[in-house]
């Protein structure tokens, strides 16, 4: 795309995500340092006061999510975040904030991809869901972070944005100006104290939005959890059903092997697929962008003509379950990932290398076996059988 005027600023991913939050209207942030989330907190601590916002250096992730919950209840666009372990501490609150029907954006600048279940199933209690977005690079992170604020406000629900070490530390020239995602409902639920004494003072509670005075003839004066959880469950179902599932796809038309991957590793998968296409292999990819709702229809359609659906994750395999549920037996689903970490546990993953990714995908063309037992020694560059079978020339 040709642009006139000055180039967008070159920012580290953490700062770009921070600027995207501010552009989306975020005026409250609370967090606790943890790599690779730390730089987002640093950026917000420096920048929010400049735009009239507040950033609190919380004493733990428990406090961070609680403060963000309180801020959100006042109608202030708010966010918090951490890294997987810190998100674990926040899960109880996240589950309750879903029930309190408050908008909140939560970042997980994760280590590898072991937090898929935490993000999509939730470590929290009760019958709850929230939306989850998974950008693959800084530009998309800027877009999706702003979209997350829109979705959070639109549905009055937490929205989780998944990032990682690569997203946090990659420097790119990126346009962080505000995006317009359409109109939002009024914040008539927000607390400011002003309805006190009117006979209709507001209540923001995960237990119900109805008060005892509305109980009518019901003699039990407490919260009616059966009524509220049922009604609220309907609202959550609507949110998941009516939010557009998003995915990027490529080379699917005649693909024998479809590779599914999300986030940073999907960049390596995409490049490996392009390379293999140049070599003549009929391979395509699906990159889920929304993890909740999962783009099941897109994955199912991609699988319908495929011989194998291969799933790469930098983990022992978690999203692979959602792929299996989407494919519903239409094609065999093979897991070709594994956990890959440097010694710090959060930095550069040795497996995230296009050549290695190519070999993994090539192996998926081979006979069915335990693809998770893939090793460079066993598979090397010798997937010739697969290439012969696939090469149309």
């Amino acid at each position: 795309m040709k642009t006139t005027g000055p180039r967008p600023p070159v920012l580290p991913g953490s700062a770009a995500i921070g600027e995207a939050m501010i552009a989306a209207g975020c005026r409250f942030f609370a967090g606790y340092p943890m790599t690779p989330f730390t730089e987002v907190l640093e950026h917000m601590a420096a920048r929010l006061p400049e735009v009239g916002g507040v950033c609190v250096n919380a004493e733990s992730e428990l406090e961070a999510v609680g403060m963000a919950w309180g801020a959100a209840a006042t109608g202030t666009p708010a966010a918090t975040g951490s890294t997987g372990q810190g998100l674990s501490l926040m899960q109880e609150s996240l589950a309750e904030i879903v029930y309190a029907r408050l908008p909140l954006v939560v970042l997980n600048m994760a280590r590898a991809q072991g937090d898929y279940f935490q993000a999509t199933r939730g470590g929290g209690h009760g019958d709850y869901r929230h939306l989850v977005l998974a950008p693959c690079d800084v530009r998309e992170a800027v877009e999706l972070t702003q979209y997350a604020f829109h979705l959070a406000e639109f549905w009055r629900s937490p929205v989780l944005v998944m990032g990682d070490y690569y997203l946090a530390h990659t420097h790119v020239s990126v346009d962080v100006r505000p995006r317009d995602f359409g109109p939002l409902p009024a914040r008539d639920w927000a607390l400011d104290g002003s309805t006190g004494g009117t006979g209709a003072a507001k209540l923001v509670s995960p237990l119900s939005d109805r008060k005892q005075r509305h109980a009518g003839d019901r003699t039990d004066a407490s919260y009616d959890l059966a009524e509220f959880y049922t009604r609220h469950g309907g609202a959550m179902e609507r949110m998941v059903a009516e939010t557009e599932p998003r995915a990027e796809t490529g080379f699917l038309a005649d693909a024998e092997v479809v590779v599914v991957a999300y986030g940073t590793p999907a960049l390596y998968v995409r490049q490996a697929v392009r390379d293999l296409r140049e070599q003549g292999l009929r391979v395509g990819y699906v990159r889920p962008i929304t993890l909740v709702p999962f783009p099941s229809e897109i994955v199912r359609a991609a699988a319908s003509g495929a011989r194998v659906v291969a799933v790469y994750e930098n983990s022992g395999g978690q999203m692979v379950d959602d792929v299996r549920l989407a494919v519903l037996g239409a094609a065999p689903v093979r897991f070709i990932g594994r956990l890959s970490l440097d010694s710090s546990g959060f930095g550069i993953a040795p497996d995230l290398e296009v050549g290695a990714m190519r070999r993994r995908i090539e192996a998926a063309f081979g006979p069915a076996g335990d693809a998770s037992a893939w090793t460079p020694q066993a598979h090397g560059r010798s997937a010739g059988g697969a290439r012969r079978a696939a090469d149309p020339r």
Partner: protein
Amino acid sequence: MSAGIPPASAPGPQPAGRRELPILTTTAAAPTCGARLVHDFTPDLIDVGAHHLCPGCGEPIAMRSMVEQVQELDQVAKAIAVFGIGCYTAYSNNLDIEVLQALHGRAPSLATGVKRCRPDTLVFTVQGDGDMVNEGLQEVLHTAARGESVTCFMLNNGVFGETGGHMTATTVLGQRTKNTLGGRDAAEHGYPIRLADLIAQLDGAAYVARGAVDDIVNITRTARMIKNAFRTQLRGEGFSFVEILTMCPTGWFVDTAAAPEYLATTHAATHTLGVLKDRRTSA
């Protein structure tokens, strides 16, 4: 003051505060005084006077005192109460001031978020000893240390009342609870935490007091403590905290009528009543 049939010539309604219900005569003459209902004794800011807390519970008295002080300080349209989880949560959907319901233990952080975004509101938490000292001790300590301009109230009855009377971190030595049937033994269960004393040591705390609702003198003193705590916040002088000892005859396994004395002789002996810290510039 004896309850009974008022004389036919008794004038109008009885003075406020009298609890005797007049018994209506069955003569053909119209009653001179209507029956008075629970609502007649309900503070303006409590929606429904009926509650399902146990007879003899001290929490409704403390709750009443808080909302009355909000009213007396003319903060009704500026107040936001943040509730923890305990028996008192029965009031979180029953007030005519704005309420934010928190998780067990986490109310001080929510109050922080509210106050930082709405500095012109009067923000206070309502929590029990199980909520504040067991589950969320670090929350209230950090909020106090930060000098957050909020007020935290702890209703301290020394038991988990809602679960039916189990030991908390403030249960006094010797106290029988459902999981310390032989009485709290320091060797086995450790010692009670005197939270107000702990908070008073933090530089961010400006006003710290411990009251009780076992008799009219303490109720009156506690009301003044609540007012002073709110004034501390309204003047932006720092964090304010009032611990309120409340009766829980059910959780203490004592007669309803004996609970105030049990509070005075047992709980107040460990959790000493009084103003522990008052750093307000103009008291």
